[in-house]
């Protein structure tokens, strides 16, 4: 599909811009552009649930990233260090070439082997009663993943609060009285 390939090429260009540009705010904005292009790709690939969630989550990531860089717009003083640059390029080219040589093992793009999801589509309405098969898979067939995912959200919320709390250790005199 040409439109899809054009979108992914646009994402690659935006990714290069996001990584290479010096000014922080414009690199964060180009990350936002990648996320929104990804939401369009999901729409093209017939995944409307994901387009909605990706779009909305992308806005939240953008807000959080801008929040982190807003008041500290320091220029990235990048001195080009040769060795890691070359090592990175070599590793990435080997990784892509190896991937390319191997990818013909996967079924061709657009002809997925749907062994399990064939069952999902056939029995979703009868077994779970929900018309949205994706919601049926997430909340009825594989509901343990959703349970773990909400616990991850709880862990991350408590984690963010621990990282961002003002003082972590009691004052010395408090410890003496407390630890008698």
């Amino acid at each position: 599909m040409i439109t899809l390939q054009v979108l992914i090429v646009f994402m690659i260009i935006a990714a290069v811009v996001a990584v290479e540009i010096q000014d922080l705010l414009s690199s964060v904005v180009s990350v936002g552009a990648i996320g929104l292009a990804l939401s369009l790709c999901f729409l093209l690939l017939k995944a409307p649930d994901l387009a909605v969630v990706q779009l909305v989550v992308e806005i939240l990531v953008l807000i959080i990233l801008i929040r982190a860089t807003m008041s500290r717009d320091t220029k990235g003083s990048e001195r080009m260090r040769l060795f890691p640059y070359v090592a990175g390029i070599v590793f990435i080219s080997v990784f892509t070439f190896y991937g390319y040589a191997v990818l013909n093992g996967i079924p061709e793009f657009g002809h997925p082997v749907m062994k399990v999801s064939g069952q999902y589509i056939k029995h979703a309405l009868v077994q779970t009663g929900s018309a949205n098969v994706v919601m049926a898979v997430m909340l009825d067939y594989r509901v343990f993943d959703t349970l773990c995912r909400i616990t991850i959200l709880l862990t991350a919320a408590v984690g963010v609060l621990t990282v961002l709390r003002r003082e972590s250790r009691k004052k010395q005199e408090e410890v003496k009285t407390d630890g008698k």
Partner: protein
Amino acid sequence: MGNDNRQVTEIRGMSLVVKTVARISVGMILMFGVFTAFYGHINTGGGFAGGVIIALAMILMLVSYGRDIFTNRFDEYKALSFLALGVLGFLVLMSLGLFVKDGYFCMNIFDKGKPFGLISSGVILPSNLIVLFAESAGLLTIFLGLVYFKVWKGK
């Protein structure tokens, strides 16, 4: 004299135009979020998208009206306890399957109802609502944590 009261209204949050637009659009965004969650098992969205949308609506209010609308009545620990209640509700909903005769842990034991009606897919609708509640509380906690950190540094 004249500009004193104008000055007072300007202190917190963004300009007046942003505030009025935010005040008008927040109701619609909240309704859209709840609608996505309620009809999750019929058309797109579901508890997850709805939760994030509602969290974004609250963040819109937070950003446009400044931090003080939340500080005294609602802080991130109250939001965290809402999240914990949401996860607890989801756990209880999942463990209902255990009390059925030969049920398993995450079993969908409610009746499946009319295929395309609103009350139609057993446990999926209530779990969508609980995820909506937990998701928005969780994301709000994360955002309040990030925003309030700046306030402490300021004081």
